[in-house]
């Protein structure tokens, strides 16, 4: 099939859009890991929760209410999780943490089923973002452009906060060496708590943003978990750069794989993961320290 430039532009935008959605998800997970060395498998469930909150809130007060409040609500759940479970698990080994959050997946999956039922829900795209924009010579759905923009904004904001501000420096110091950071008067525990909540809020935001695009189903969290893990493992756990790189790689491989090698589409990304881990057993851009 011969394709024109517009086709490839469209696919590039698709890849970017998928990458940004994954980035929103993986960044929370990777920041939590980087700071707390805590693998939160329930991150996907928080994403699903965000989508459900957004759907319920949107039904009451429209899309933007869901968009702004769902992350807050998920952060609230994060607070509960942190004070109930995570805080106590901080000092246990990674295996225990993986299992507790694995258990949480089951619990949260069934809780969403109990509260919201098995039927798929959906949110309408807000009027403001309906339709398409002509862009680089193609027409592209405004909402998808919004996701790309939002992803880039969050990326910029995080890069700014983590890279340029005092707080960012403190967080990175905590990532590098939490004991020494504490010796400089930084309350690393509180920072962890805040970061965990922010990570949860980002998961919730990803859910709220994905909801109008996809359908909201109880298992959406479980389904997104593996791609998210692949993203951060390819990129290297705990680094912003890794999350960006991983998301972009995943988005590009998935999108262009679907177009160029459809038979291999579902195997391709796993093959890539395996290859990356064989060549670089700790991912492409692992956090130092």
């Amino acid at each position, binding site marked *: 099939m011969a394709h024109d430039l517009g086709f490839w532009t469209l696919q590039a935008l698709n890849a970017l859009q998928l990458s940004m959605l994954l980035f929103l998800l993986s960044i929370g997970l990777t920041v939590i890991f980087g700071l707390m060395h805590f693998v939160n498998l329930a991150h996907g469930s928080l994403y699903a929760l965000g989508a459900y909150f957004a759907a319920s809130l949107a039904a009451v007060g429209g899309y933007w209410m869901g968009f702004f409040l769902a992350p807050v609500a998920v952060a609230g759940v994060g607070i509960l999780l942190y004070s109930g479970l995570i805080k106590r698990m901080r000092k246990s080994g990674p295996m225990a943490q993986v299992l507790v959050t694995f258990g949480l997946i089951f619990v949260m999956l069934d809780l969403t089923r109990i509260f919201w039922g098995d*039927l798929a829900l959906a949110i309408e795209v807000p009027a403001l973002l309906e339709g398409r924009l002509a862009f680089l010579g193609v*027409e592209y759905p405004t909402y998808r452009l919004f996701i790309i923009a939002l992803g880039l904004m969050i990326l910029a904001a995080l890069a700014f906060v983590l890279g340029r501000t005092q707080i960012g420096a403190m967080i990175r110091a905590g990532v590098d060496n939490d004991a020494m950071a504490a010796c400089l008067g930084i309350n690393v525990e509180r920072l962890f708590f805040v970061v965990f909540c922010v990570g949860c809020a980002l998961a919730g935001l990803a859910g709220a943003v994905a909801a109008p695009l996809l359908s909201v189903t109880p298992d959406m969290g479980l389904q997104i978990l593996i791609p998210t893990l692949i993203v951060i493992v390819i990129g290297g756990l705990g680094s912003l750069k890794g999350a960006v790189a991983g998301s972009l790689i995943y988005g590009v491989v998935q999108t262009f794989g679907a177009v160029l090698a459809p038979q291999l589409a579902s195997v391709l990304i796993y093959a890539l993961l395996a290859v990356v881990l064989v060549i670089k057993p700790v991912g492409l851009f692992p956090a130092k320290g």
Partner: protein
Amino acid sequence: EDIKVGLLLPFSGVYAALGNEIEAGFNLALEQFAGETDATFEIIREDTEVKPPVALGKAKKLILQDDVDVIAGIVSSGVLGAVRDMVHDAGVPLIVANAGNDEATGADCSPFITRMSFSNSQVNRPMGSWMHEQGIGKVYTLAPDYAAGRQMIDAFTASFTAAGGEVVGQEFTPFQKTKDFGPYLAQAKASGADAVYVFYAGGEAISFVKQYDSFGLKADLPLYGSGFLTSQLYVNAQGPAAEGVITALHYVPTIDTPANATFTEAFTAANGRVPSEFAVQGYDAARALIEATKTGASDRASLATALREVKFEGPRGTLSIDPATNNVVQPIYVYETVAGENSLTQTVLAQLPAEADPVNGCEMAPVSN
């Protein structure tokens, strides 16, 4: 006489919503028609979790421990494939209330398995010739990459090309792993087709229809498909994106017959939502069972025989069982999803005549033992 019925449905997992819908229809029919027969029914429900091994275990339990007279249900074709030999060998009649794989009433048919739902090719085949009649010459097809997806599309492709149409592109997307159809939609757009024909169901259907609309494809490239795409169960989640999508299915809630009016009214009253094709499948499965018991059948063998001879007027029109395959014979409705008063509704564009599936290698032995 007391008849033990095993209801084998997914109540958890991806198809939990379908299981609940079928069960609701099943119970409704028991309520409405139980008076017509002397038999009484004891229902034992088991959750398949949409996992074939689990379902097989549950089927074994129903057959060997609970000693049921008849089993109804089964949503996924994989599960049907798994329990097929078990029910066949045990001689337990099975009323299939959803799973549509062609083999179940083809090469793998059994005198004990009666399908009251549909077969994959049955709902797609008529659409091929119908679409060509509407003047559509070139079609791009999309479906998830699994057996049912391929069967649905193959049936459509066969009749569409037989009628003189051309399939200009065909893609199968990774099943249950594709959340983003953007890449495929760009392909479809670039393919030069007049229309797109798809099969998607459940969550994938919602995502697909919404994304199709958001890319602005609907205007230039009308969307057609197997009716599960805009099933009543999901169509409201799709919202305005579903307007104008034309699909074909064995049931639409807006079929204008008295039988359907009674059914939709009763179902809506009982469940607070308009019934979907899954509800009607459950409803008719129970109805078929009741019809069979009316003949006096009460044990496994007699029920199996009686089930094959059921014929009644239901919400979807006149239903009968094709003795050659044990598949239901039913009319197919082409409908367009349109905006209703406060939710989406359907306009039936055409009722295509009931047609029995080809035998597909089915060698039906008479009910023995």
